[in-house]
């Protein structure tokens, strides 16, 4: 049961709607972005830039900040779907569950990539980071963000129907994203400090994670939507 536009048409419709909701509510700009910058600042205060530790830890701190911000973004995205019977309406709409899933992943990926772009500037200013290997950095950001959004959308849907979703979502999601965090951090270390080409295996690994999460998510979203 899918509309004439098929999975892709449904995905575009849902992604457009989610981005429109963000434009209207401005949660990303008003709450998530200030939170992310605050975390970067706190890391800078905690790890004195003069001691060099901050510079060494920059990739890890960046991705930890992105993960925390992603949890907030996911919670908001799925809380909206749990309000006012929207999940029931989505089930009645006849849209493909895989289309709904991919639409939410697309919107989350765009929102997180924009956030990361601002955070990169923040890191450059606050941590005095020099960027080398821009194509590698971009590839790592895109693939890691797809992985985060792909896994996050599954767990967001799972947690949406639970009263304790605010605390449960990070508990479920963060361990699952540990491999993404490790690969993204290593890849960024390479792109920031060393020969850029040697970071591509990390990007490839992130691509595999993203593919696995997206494939599983496309199949798992139907039962998750039915149970929600």
């Amino acid at each position, binding site marked *: *049961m899918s*509309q*004439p536009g098929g999975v892709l048409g*449904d995905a575009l*419709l849902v992604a457009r*709607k989610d981005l*429109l*909701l963000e434009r*209207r*509510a401005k949660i990303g700009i008003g709450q998530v972005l200030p939170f992310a910058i605050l975390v970067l600042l706190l890391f800078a205060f905690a790890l004195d830039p003069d001691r060099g530790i901050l510079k060494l830890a920059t990739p890890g701190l960046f991705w930890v900040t992105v993960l925390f911000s992603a949890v907030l973004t996911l919670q908001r995205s799925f809380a*909206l779907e749990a*309000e*006012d*019977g*929207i999940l*029931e*309406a*989505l*089930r*009645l*709409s*006849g*849209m493909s569950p895989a289309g709904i899933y991919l639409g939410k992943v697309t919107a989350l990926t765009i929102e997180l990539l924009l956030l990361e772009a601002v955070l990169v500037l923040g890191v450059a200013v606050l941590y005095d980071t020099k960027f080398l290997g821009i194509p590698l950095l971009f590839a790592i950001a895109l693939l890691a963000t797809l992985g985060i959004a792909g896994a996050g959308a599954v767990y967001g849907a799972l947690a949406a129907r639970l009263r304790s979703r605010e605390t449960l979502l990070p508990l479920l999601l963060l361990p699952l994203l540990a491999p993404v965090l490790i690969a993204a951090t290593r890849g960024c270390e390479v792109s920031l400090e060393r020969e850029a080409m040697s970071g591509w295996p990390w990007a490839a690994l992130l691509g595999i994670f993203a593919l696995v999460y997206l494939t599983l998510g496309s199949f798992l979203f139907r039962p998750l939507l039915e149970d929600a």
Partner: protein
Amino acid sequence: MSAIVHLRSAVALIGRFPALAGVDLDVHAGEILLLRGPNGAGKTTLLGVCAGLIGLSTGEAVVLGEDLTKNRRAVRRRVGLLGHDSFLYQDLSVVENLDFWSRAAAATVADGRAALDRLGVASRLFELPVHSLSAGQRRRVSFAAMICRRPELWLLDEPHAGLDSAGRDLVDGLMSEAATSGATVLFASHELDRAEHVAHRSVTISGGVILDETPPSTETRAEL
């Protein structure tokens, strides 16, 4: 006369509670059926079962020719459900909601605008976010989002709730029009004076079972 809704010994559990405890019901094409009953009787669950949202534990359920015990999803696009919830995104405007839900149901944006006009939603409200509307206005927008799908089976839970007198008359008119054009209407209401006037037939549900049935009047039988 074919049965659009056919339930036999239908049992539906909400958690472990049998919200429907063996319902037998037939609703025919073009019929307007009123579900009466106290709060917690199982009216909303019955509508949810007919919409394919709630599964049966035991019993038979065939809606619009689809066996819901085998595939509940098959019927969903063909029904329209107006529930207690608005089914609307509160931060989106009226037209943004209608555009999304009409496209999601494979209808056109023009269908959505026509539905808003039909429900008497003033054009000055079109760009307002739904959260800023009154309860009655929201109800009209929800109704518009439902009818733009052109459902074959209307499932309405307290359709008059929150509406002013003109809105209630409008809803009654829409139900009658739908039935005349071949759709089937199943609605739950506590406003019996108004509801019995528009319904062709009514059943009383309590404790998850159908207690009694008021047969259609001679006039209604002739219409059917």
